[in-house]
């Protein structure tokens, strides 16, 4: 019959139309505007509309999502901020569009470079969100943030982030990237344990030889 193909296609369209609303009616409003609803709509066997009603609902970004970088600082027992960055410059060299600008100074007493950045600029208009700075930092000092709502009215003033604006606490990092944070803490702890064991072994040996 001429037209059979078109009719088959229209049958598929009708099926889609009906399934769009079945889940909505079944769950009667619990499908939107709450986190369980978003989770339901993100599963691979979702039926019906899975559009996320932004900005009332926001899809939680997965852990690996990368947007603009930020610098991590730890807080020690006295409550002081310890910036992890040593201004080694590797992130600046690994950055493809060269959007990281670092100012490093030398210590006047020792003549060697001071292991903290005097100034640290990132031009977020140029940043291409590749994640190389975070990937190649040897001190876990710069990581990729999840915040993507960064528009402003004056990009000349607002879109060059300086050191103050880039620093965020390690708790924030643990909050947005729990698995990565746990893995890095584990590696740090193992290193400390190994160092402590090596020191003990040396102390033992020198104690024995005395």
């Amino acid at each position: 019959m001429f037209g059979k193909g078109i009719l088959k296609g229209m049958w598929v369209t009708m099926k889609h139309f009906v399934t769009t609303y079945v889940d909505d009616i079944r769950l009667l409003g619990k499908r939107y505007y709450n986190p369980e609803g978003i989770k339901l709509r993100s599963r691979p066997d979702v039926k019906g509309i899975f559009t996320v009603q932004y900005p009332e609902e926001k899809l939680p970004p997965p852990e690996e999502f990368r947007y603009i970088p930020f610098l991590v600082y730890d807080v020690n027992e006295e409550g002081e901020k310890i910036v992890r960055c040593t201004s080694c410059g590797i992130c600046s060299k690994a950055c493809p569009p060269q959007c990281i600008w670092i100012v490093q100074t030398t210590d006047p007493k020792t003549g060697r470079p001071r292991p903290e950045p005097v100034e640290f600029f990132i031009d977020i208009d140029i940043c291409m969100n590749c994640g190389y700075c975070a990937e190649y930092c040897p001190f876990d000092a710069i990581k990729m943030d999840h915040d993507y709502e960064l528009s402003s009215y004056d990009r000349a003033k607002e879109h060059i982030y300086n050191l103050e604006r880039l620093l965020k606490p390690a708790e924030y990092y643990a909050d947005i990237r729990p698995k990565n944070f746990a893995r890095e803490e584990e590696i740090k702890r193992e290193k400390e344990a190994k160092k402590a064991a090596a020191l003990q072994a040396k102390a033992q040996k020198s104690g024995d030889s005395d």
Partner: protein
Amino acid sequence: MTEKTISPPTELEKRFPQGVTLDQREGYSGYLVDAQKLVEVATVLRDEMGYDYLSSVTGVDYIQDNLMEVVYHFYKSTGGSELTLNVQVSRENPVIPSLYHTFPSVDFQEREAWDLLGIKFDGHPDLRRILLWEGFAGHPLRKDWKEPFFNEDNKPFSNRWPEGNVFRVEDTNPYGKNVQYPDDLAQPEKWKPETEDLLYAGLLDFKAGEGKDFKTDYVVVNLGPQHPSTHGVFRMAVVLDGETIVALKPVVGYLHRNHEKIGERNTYLHNMPYTDRLDYLCSMTNNFGYAIAVEKLLGKKAVVPERAEYLRVIMSELTRISNHVWAIGFILNDLGAFFTPMLYAIEERELILDIFEATAGSRMMCNYFRFGGVSRDMPEDVFQKLKELVNERLPRKIDELDIYLTENEIIAERCEGVGILSPDDAITLGASGPLLRSSGVPYDIRRADPYGIYDRFDFDVAVRYHGDCYDRFIIRLDEVRQSLRILQQAVRDIPEGPVLTKNPYNIRVPEGEAYGRIESPKGELGYYLVSDGTANPYRYHIRAPSLINLTGLEKICIGQKIADVVVILGSIDIVLGECDR
């Protein structure tokens, strides 16, 4: 390369004792051919040795040796690896005989070498600029040409660290003061810009129709760069006789960003995220091609672990599915089924992009591959999601798309018999990918010249024999089914283990040249790299399938109606990011 010991290579040297010599430079494995003998050698390669597929033509500027070199990569359409010919001419006045009449596929590529490097091709019928506008002064890819806002020759720039006092580069050259006139322009006010006379002159040089009863006019229409159906900023200047097309010339270059020059400033690692931005719908396969080219040069320094090889194949095939459903959706959109089938097709793509986001960090600019593996492992919950997608949801949805569209009478009426490309034309015009295979030539790089671990998977090469738009549309459904087969095998067999042999961020690549090519969803995506032993590439060229597939657009479209052009262009499936680079 050890294959040089078997014929036909030594045969070639025997045939042309003065013209052809084996390339002795460190890391080069081709033939140096004398410019005068080039056409003869190419004809012998095509007619007697079976190398009928000229895939890539590119130019290199060796400023320190005062030479310009043009590199040709020949393949057999029955499969196998490449035969490279290098032709060197002096840099002062570089002229090489054109291969246009032997291999029509070099049309756009020779124009690009003229445009960006200034190499003249003797005998090319229409040697105009292709990527830059007609009045551009200079040849950007020459080593002595500096771009606007020039910082330094090679990244990383020294003004970022340790004295990195930030400045915005647009403040160094404020608006209004950023105009430069070429040195040989005596009076700027009296300058008339070059118009597109050459383009329109070439266009109107068509064979007028036979025996017309009416006296009609021919109309020149620009399906301009801003058009909802041209898949990006692409322009076609057509000459119409009523509704029938009599001549057509594609005009590209509206998205040209001089990616190759940026590539020469970057280090090898820096180039990886830039390749994402080439064919922006298929970022994983772009990364794959670049990783393969650099790993060819690196050799033993970058051995890819097993799990990483499987992840690479999984990501490539997911990209192929995502690209083909997008293409099918857009063909239907262009036909007039306004948005509904497109959105149904793209629904599946959303789930694939969620997998990319959870693994690589970003939906579209994935930057996932590294030299020696992939950057991150796939989390376990994402892997379960992938398994469910590949084994259950995607096959069902593709079958639904099939029912929805394959027997549709409107599609059959509008696409069958429209825009036929014969197999011989497809090979000589350099077509690749679904365009080539829908014309009856079963050439798939994953089978013909395997890379990665594709030789371990059991899949068929999708071929269709009519060469019209309907076949180009159905072959994409076939390829998605084959990709699902590969994915099901990969997901079943993937081993545990590391995913990366670590490489430093400032890796130095040994000297030499390499051409790494992959079967991207659009066709043959090739990366030609020349390395001089430093941290930055000396020459970085991309053989873009979208641009080369357009070589045959004029031939396909002549005689069709103007409404068919839109469908034909959609079925060739171009993306301007890779066409213009």
